[in-house]
């Protein structure tokens, strides 16, 4: 029993770390630009597929680079895709919430169709590193431990950037008052571009670790997008701290549900949580209401 609880806690911690990577980017884009980017899931899926293409023999036999190269490629390519998504599409429609909403959904669905067309609909396994080790009676795969470490390193770097550098602070400042940022000479367009790049890099990273866990599939974006959305509402929209807390809360609730009820009910309690927060605490745990006007 003790062993099962320890396993559940460890599993929850590991999966939450990946959820956090995904939720942070989602919340930053909402906070800075007021854009609900429903193609965020497509970006993390792109990260996982890029890794597969670059590293895995079973996808492109002629490309079998070292996993480290694959991880870097996944981060860089998705950061660029994210920037392109902003520059080529979102920038032109962001003033209209409905059009932004629809066009990013369409893009996400189109990306699924594209991947089905290229790679087929089946699940494709990708791996970072084989093997596992024992931790308090639980078996932890090496890739899970690496995912956890990478997640916290990324969060620490981001935190340092936005609280200790003028450049990063300008991003937070823009999310609080765009006019204030302009008055202090901040280039809003640059801030938005940087935000999309950061969100893309984090999504690419998170997407790869989701892929190591459950493989590549053209619909792998759907569930994490829901998780990111719920994490952001629970944590408080626009708050980086809140999105991390929200991601962990969801990770733990999901894991407890799987242990006690069964895998089929995995997503249900978090949806109830979402409804509860929307009704009774719409500002979230670290709520600053809607800092963005």
């Amino acid at each position, binding site marked *: 029993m003790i062993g099962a609880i320890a396993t559940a806690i460890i599993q929850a911690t590991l999966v939450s770390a990946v959820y956090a990577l995904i939720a942070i980017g989602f919340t930053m884009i909402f906070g800075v630009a007021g854009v609900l980017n429903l193609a965020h899931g497509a970006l993390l899926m792109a990260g996982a597929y890029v890794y597969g293409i670059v590293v895995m023999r079973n996808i492109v036999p002629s490309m079998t680079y070292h996993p480290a190269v694959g991880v870097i490629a996944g981060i860089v390519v998705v950061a660029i895709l994210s920037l392109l998504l902003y520059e080529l599409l979102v920038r032109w429609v962001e003033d209209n919430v409905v059009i932004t909403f629809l066009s990013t959904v369409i893009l996400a669905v189109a990306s699924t169709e594209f991947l089905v067309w290229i790679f087929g609909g089946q699940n494709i396994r990708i791996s970072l590193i084989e093997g596992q080790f024992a931790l308090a009676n639980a078996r932890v795969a090496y890739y899970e431990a690496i995912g956890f470490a990478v997640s916290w390193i990324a969060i620490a770097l981001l935190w340092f950037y936005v609280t200790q550098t*003028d450049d990063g602070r300008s991003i*937070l*400042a823009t999310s609080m*008052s765009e006019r204030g940022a302009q*008055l*202090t*000479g*901040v280039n809003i367009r640059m801030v938005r571009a940087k935000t999309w790049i950061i969100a893309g890099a984090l999504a690419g990273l998170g997407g790869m670790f989701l892929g190591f866990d459950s493989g590549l599939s053209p619909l792998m974006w759907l569930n994490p997008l829901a998780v990111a959305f719920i994490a952001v509402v629970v944590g408080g929209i626009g708050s980086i701290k809140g999105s991390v807390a929200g991601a962990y809360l969801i990770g733990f609730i999901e894991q407890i549900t799987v242990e006690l009820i069964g895998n089929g009910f995995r997503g249900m309690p978090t949806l109830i949580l979402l409804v509860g927060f929307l009704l009774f605490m719409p500002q979230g745990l670290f709520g*600053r209401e809607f*800092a963005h006007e």
Partner: protein
Amino acid sequence: MPVLQLEDVDVSYGKTQALRNVSLEVEEGEIVGVIGPNGAGKTTMLDSIAGYKEYSGSITYDGTEVSETSSGKLVNDGLVYCTEDRDLFPYFTVHENLQMGAQFRSDDGAVQESFDFVYDLFPRLDERRDQEAQTMSGGEQQMLALGRALMSDPDVLMLDEPTLGLAPVIIDDISEALERLQDEGLTILLVEQNSTFALRHAERLYLLEQGSIELSGTADELRDDDYIRDAYVGVT
């Protein structure tokens, strides 16, 4: 040559004209006041100068036409605007708000001097370095807005209604700060509904009514003007 010059500036919102043929000059080291009632177009004028509004006519800062550059570039070049709404960063501390004012400056030594100057100018801000801006009183927020603008190392400072809604004792603090800035030789364009305050600080003033400059002159001339006295200063 004036550091800031407006010539025949027109601004309109759709069919309503907010500014009509406005011409105004600010020389280096001067404090110039613009007074006038609510809705006269004072804020519109400042928004246009700061690069946020389209206009016809000419607005030059340091010889450059404002419409040909960007609002961010103007701030970098020393034209700093302290708005009526203050537009502070509500969840940043006092210190972080001030840091934002200097975010584009790279000379750390000079930035530190600006911090020392601002904290010395407003000891209240010094006491509240770690307090979030949103939790401060109106007067403290006004000091912070002024402090943040000073952190940008302005050559010309534009102040929009710095005394609006403040208690007399706080207005005295702001007054004192303005006097020190004047002694430092800072150029200030002061826009105020509070004519008494503007007349006390500005060397020259313009009266803006319904989008047009109706009157201009030195502080002494305007103080003795019957129209100004009856309509704006009152019998205090």
